[in-house]
């Protein structure tokens, strides 16, 4: 086993916990949904496109967002549901552009399927807009090399993994994830950093993501 490189700067693991705040806004038609999507804060779009990742991480990765789920289940608009579900979230480096893509997808669909405007959800099945309030706090886990990093990665919460992979990338508008940034700048291993940033985290469960990142690092340090 090669000697481990000591990091220039240690990696402090943070965790991100969220609280759901209700907005009192609800939609029962596609037009209402669209109007509200245009107005709500970014933390609301974030909640509805990322909630499933944390709440359903043991299930298969679908359904990927609340909008897709609702138009399919409550309005029976399967085609639009599929289009919303297949929005490639990882391509968007900020919430604003993700919101625009969602709006564009619904508007285009409504242009071609005007009858969809007439559909109402059943009573009690309206779409309720919720926003995420995020609390970011440092944990007591600190890694000084890749071995430490691997050990900690195995035991931290999925919330911590979530924070470093998703929150950093999209909401805080960083280009890649925190793990890759640290591995590249503090360990000096660009190849390893790129391998991790090349993963599409949105099509995996968080547990699977943890295992995959661990495997990549394990392979690297055992070479």
């Amino acid at each position, binding site marked *: 086993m090669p000697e481990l490189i000591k990091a220039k700067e240690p990696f402090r693991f943070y*965790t991100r*916990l*969220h*609280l*759901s*705040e*209700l*907005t*009192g806004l*609800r939609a029962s038609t596609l037009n209402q949904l669209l109007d509200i999507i245009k107005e709500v*804060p970014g*933390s609301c779009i974030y909640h509805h496109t990322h909630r499933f990742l*944390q*709440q*359903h*991480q*043991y*299930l*298969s990765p679908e*359904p990927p967002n609340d909008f897709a789920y609702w138009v399919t*289940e409550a309005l029976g608009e399967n085609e639009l549901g599929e289009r919303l579900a297949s929005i490639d979230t990882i391509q968007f480096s900020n919430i604003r552009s993700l919101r625009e893509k969602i709006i564009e997808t619904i508007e285009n669909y409504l242009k071609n399927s005007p009858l969809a405007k007439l559909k109402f959800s059943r009573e*009690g*099945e*309206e779409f*309720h807009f*919720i*926003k*995420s*309030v*995020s*609390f*970011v*706090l440092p*944990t*007591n886990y600190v890694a000084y090399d890749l071995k430490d990093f691997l050990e900690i990665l195995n*035991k*931290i*919460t999925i*919330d*911590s993994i979530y924070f470093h992979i998703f929150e950093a990338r999209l*909401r805080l508008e960083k280009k890649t994830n925190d793990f890759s940034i640290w591995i590249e700048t503090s360990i000096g291993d660009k190849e390893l950093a790129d391998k991790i940033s090349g993963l599409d985290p949105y099509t995996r469960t968080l547990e699977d993501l943890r295992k995959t990142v661990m495997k990549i690092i394990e392979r690297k340090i055992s070479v």
Partner: protein
Amino acid sequence: MAKIEEYIPIVGQSIIDDLKLLAEKLKGKVIQHINSTSVGGGVAEILSRMVPLLKELGVDTRWDLIKGGEQFFEVTKKFHNALQGGTEIISRHDFDIFMETSQKNIDGVDTYGDIVFIHDPQPIGLIKKKANNKWIWRCHIDVSNPNQRVWSFLKDFVADYDAVVFSAPTFSQRLPIRQFLISPSIDPLSDKNRELPQKVIDSVLSKYSILKDKPIITQISRFDRLKDPVGVIEAYQQVKKYIDCQLVLAGGAATDDPEGMKVLEEVKEKAKQDRDIHILLLPHNDIEVNALQRASTVIIQKSIKEGFGLTVAEALWKAKPVVASKVGGITLQIKHKYSGLLCHSIEGASFAIKQLLNSPEYAKKLGENGREHIRTNFLLTRHLRDYMLLFLSLYHPEDIVYL
């Protein structure tokens, strides 16, 4: 009473570490819960488990009660029903009684907490004592379709709070204050949910003369029309035409509740002489409920209206395949075909039960997914975390809070 460390094997060390980190951030704050009773009912049950755990984590948490006479509680019971959409007639006199008792409590209760956490409508009027401290109103009731007269009466109080907490998104209202979504939870170490030795399960089955020779379908609920026990029997009868199975309907019905006794009679009439239908009027016996759930092949919750539906969480936690109505908080717990099956009708329920009985592997997968979903989202530890985040949010209005 379980200690916080005992939850580690269930949720993992890191979840408990997070709770400790949050608790540190609340050092120096006094949290004062206030409700109307220390025993009986869901609120007292939750508080009796939460308060000691928060204390153990180092959060200075106290629990106080308001006082009220028989008349006051009759009025608040009416409020409760009206808020859930019932057709209660509430007179001016009822509101006067409420205000009178509220005033006595305003005079008599010391609201010393840095954060005063008021549960349900009974103590809501204490907000008139608000000083420089923070106040939260926790609404445990389904207010998705409230009686407007009662709601607008309460709304005047609610508007003076710093935040309100609801259990499901459908309960949210247009309000001038922040509203948070915090679901209830189950305690995996309580008698109702802890692991049971097979011999305990068998002894409960034997006590109620239930044999294990055919699949057991179970609904645990009080005998109440909103739980649709008659509909459950009809669904079972449709299943029974194709699959030999048995039905357990178990729950309480207070003898002083004439409506409950009437429903029980209707259920017995509907069941007639079918020896495979077991109607069990259980006293409050959590271990027996636990054993019946664990012995079941499929668990059903065919409610017509449901605040949250903790029995669903209990069943999923036992990795049981569940068929439940798509109402209230049940939809937070079950995603159709992922962690259970949802239905809208008796026919839908019977079809779903048949699917599960005929496809045990599929049923097993749904149950396993359901258990993990509950582990992540509906255990007491998540509830503790949300409450601590709620307390912290009172001092941080922003959407991203760096602690």
